[in-house]
């Protein structure tokens, strides 16, 4: 199940883990991504807290935690290949995973259809 935020993050629940990234719409708006600053593994975040920074040729943007939880893993390949976010924002270009989150927080986020409508508006 994939869920989306108004700040253009996505979250995919994989059992006890929540995988997080920015949406394809977001990578397109940002343009070529040149650097990704990832959180430290083990860090505890609240929902809405700045989790990562995505830097493109146009701007540096905060990525906000769509859920509260503890950072379980980060996508290390982004250090060498930030362009992965452009190529596959909603796949190999994931940013980090969280554990210890509250699944009901995820359910409150937008569905794919709702997010698509949100982007059109």
């Amino acid at each position, binding site marked *: 199940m994939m869920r989306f935020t108004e700040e253009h993050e996505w979250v995919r629940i994989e059992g006890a883990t929540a995988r997080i990234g920015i949406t394809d719409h977001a990578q397109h708006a940002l343009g*070529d991504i*040149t650097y990704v600053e990832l959180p430290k593994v083990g860090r505890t975040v609240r929902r809405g807290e700045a989790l990562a920074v995505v830097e493109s040729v146009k701007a540096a943007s905060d990525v906000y935690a769509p859920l509260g939880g503890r950072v379980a893993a980060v996508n290390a390949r982004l250090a060498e290949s930030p362009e992965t976010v452009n190529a596959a924002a909603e796949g190999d270009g994931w940013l980090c995973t969280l554990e210890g989150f509250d699944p009901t927080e995820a359910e409150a986020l937008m569905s794919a259809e709702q997010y698509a409508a949100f982007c059109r508006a």
Partner: protein
Amino acid sequence: MKQPTIFERSVAGRRGVTLPRLSPAEARGPLPVPPALCADAPPDLPEVSELDVVRHYTLLSQRNCCVDTHFYPLGSCTMKYNPRVCEKVAALDGFAGIHPLLPQLRGGGALTQGALEVLWRTERLLCDLTGMEAFTLQPMAGAHGELTGLLLIAAYHRAQGRPRRRVLIPDSAHGTNPASAAIAGFEVVPVATGPDGTIDLADFEARLTPDTAAVMLTCPNTLGLFERQIREVAERAHANGTLLYYDGANMNALMGRVRPGDLGFDVLHLNAHKTLSTPHGGGGPGAGPVGVKAALLPFLPVSTVEKRDDGTFALNYDRPQSIGYIAPFYGNFGVLLRAYTYLLALGGDGLREATDHAVLNANYLRVRLRACFDVPYDRLCLHEVVLSAERQARAGVRAVDIAKALIDAGFHPPTVYFPLIVREALMIEPTETESKQTLDSFIAALEAIARRAEEEPGSFAEQPASTPVSRPDETKAARDMRLKA
């Protein structure tokens, strides 16, 4: 068009200077330099004659694109013309030849009365212009002014016995605002922009906590719009014990019309290059004077320039609550002297007129250009207007392509992709000194570009064609940074 680099001009053995030969004794003996300091191999320098060097750099200097050669509507940067009279005054021997340590030397005060008086009078004029109680002229640039202002705010709250941690900043702000707040040790909290392009008052209220030290606002904001609810923001902030910081980046839109001090701002900085016509200087010496209301006066950096009862001027270092030194000496004196000259040369009426013309020029562009470009916040703007190239982007011609095409049309491009809250933003700031003829030819160029974007959207890829390098690979430059040879 392409000009070789100085290394490409190199010819083995060619020299611009002839060094004295070693004497036979020197040539035999060890070099009078410790071996550890000697390089293993000669440095890789271009081998060129003096004339090669002169011609190379003279040609390079002629490639400069600047206010003296081109219309330069780089939004948010206020590329003001630098009147020559300011340069003339700054070059006067009595000012240019003065040593910065002189006022601190025994008897030096008497020899620097003129310079100290310039600083003192500049402070007074800036107080008049902004409605503040006192100024420090020391900060070396706008962002340095922001940091100084935030340190003053931190000192103020500490002195109240209640340090505060958060600073609220609208999402339309210049990037320096959150950066300065973070460096000063604050937590940055963004505030949303409402549908009319100004601060979202409800969002602001929701984020205003007892721990909020300050609100940083640019007015007019980076969309070129006056913050209509500024009085409400000021009231709510002050009722909460929160100070209001004015980012003077856009003061060129208010001179002689509105004083930030009267709007309720407690601390502000001015960018001398954006308001007082001092040179932008490619990151060189700048000045970001900081003004404060009376409550923050005790915390100003040392030293301050004071006028004694006998009419003489002196530097005061005896300020126990001061945040201390923030810059060597007394700021960039040469820059401040230009600012002082500009203030006097224009006078109150002249400054107001400069603002009026800056605003008129921006609105003229807005109204004339809205037929061919989207204007996301289409209402009376102040000194700059933000267009959007979304319409053109749908055909594949993006803001960056329009900027590159403008170069070939003989104009410096506007700012693109800022503010971040506008898609495909083209931010145009004409400033007050441009004639209607210049503005009309700029409009004609943009109209032609918009037409071409519809008819031949594929024709932009090769632009600019008139520059030595057409399109540097910005992505590669950012991803694959090599700072060493």
